[in-house]
């Protein structure tokens, strides 16, 4: 128990430290971009949020499929925790992207591929969570939820390559295996972005782990209520 609390507090301390370091790098260390001015600093929030929401839906799909295979309730809890944290990050990704686009592109939204597929991913998250909430528990719910998550995972891969496949206004890929061809960025910007991605990934992991604990507690409450009801039935 003590070990769990210590490791949790250490994780929280590292996350908080990385967040502060990110903010210092974003607002103090990184130079102002010549063409966009200070608004480009919002990309140090937008890109990491996009990253975690895309990785999260892949994680949801893997955990959902693994639950169907292994029937381990912890995998189901993990899928829900990642989905709920991912939908928050997805919503923030869309909002920060729109608020960046307004002064730079002079429009809140365009119908280009990267934006549209990102919006679809957000709706897939919402569909996954709504479906799980409204459909009665059972094997069918798990199967359909897993299918929704897999569609989301495929969509996240399309989002990743969308800017290169359908070249429009959105900047090209700068992160990951396909990044750095046309969109190579200066070292100070690149390093700041890398630190921001790590910090947001840690934040995401911390919040998702907290959501996981809540899910466990929710299951405990259901089990305790079931026991209480059964005991009540026996007595009457």
């Amino acid at each position, binding site marked *: 128990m003590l070990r769990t609390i210590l490791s949790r507090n250490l994780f*929280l301390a590292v996350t908080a430290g990385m967040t502060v370091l990110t903010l210092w790098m974003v*607002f*103090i260390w990184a130079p102002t971009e010549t063409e966009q001015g*200070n608004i480009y600093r919002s990309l140090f929030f937008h890109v990491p949020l996009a990253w975690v929401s895309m990785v999260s839906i892949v994680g949801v799909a893997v955990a959902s499929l693994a639950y169907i295979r292994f029937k381990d309730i912890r995998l189901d809890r993990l899928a829900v925790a990642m989905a709920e944290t991912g939908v928050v990050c997805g919503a*923030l990704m869309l909002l920060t992207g729109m608020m*960046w686009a307004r002064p730079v592109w002079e429009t809140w939204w365009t119908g280009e591929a990267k934006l549209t597929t990102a919006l679809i991913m957000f709706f897939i998250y919402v569909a996954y969570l709504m479906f799980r909430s409204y459909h009665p528990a059972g094997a069918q719910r798990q199967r359909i939820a897993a299918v929704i998550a897999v569609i989301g995972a495929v969509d996240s891969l399309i989002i990743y390559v969308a800017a290169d496949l359908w070249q429009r206004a959105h900047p090209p890929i700068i992160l990951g295996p396909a990044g750095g061809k046309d969109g190579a960025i200066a070292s100070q910007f690149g390093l700041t972005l890398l630190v921001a991605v790590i910090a947001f990934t840690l934040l995401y992991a911390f*919040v998702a782990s907290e959501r996981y604990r809540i899910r466990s507690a929710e299951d405990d409450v259901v089990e305790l209520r079931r026991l209480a009801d059964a005991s009540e039935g026996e007595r009457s």
Partner: protein
Amino acid sequence: MNMRSLVALTIAALISYAALPASPGLAQSASEVFDGVITGYTTAGTGELQSFTMVNAKGQMLEFKVQAGAQTTAYGLENQAGDRWVSDQSKDPVEAVRRLRDHQERFAPVTVTARDGVALSVVEKEGGRLETNLGYLFAIYTVTWLAFFGYVFILSRRQRDLQREIARLKAAPASQNKK
């Protein structure tokens, strides 16, 4: 999510906000940014751009060298029709002369990023948006942290309620009997 977690994350956010009021001077960049109009240029015998001069809004004359190689001078200049030419000194040193001459003749303002008198980039002036888009940055920053902390707060409330419910159910005689 316990109270200590919330406090730690809140302190992190507050510290970061302390950096925000200094936004106009925000970045201590190693390079400097200049706006102005091209007034002249020098070329090598091969017709390649070597340096150029420009005058800023205060009437000061500024001279910048351009360079090729690893730290090549980057260009992002538009013609009268608005088509943007993006290149650098290593690739198109002669075309750079033509583009700068075009800007000089049209009195089209440019933004130069320079370090130690050497231009790192020469781009179209961004219509003064460099200073005015801080409001959007502030909005993005605020929305991100408000939403994030709002979610964390909801989680902490939910966890507290669940812990109370678990304690209540465990204390109930039915659960105790079953155990």
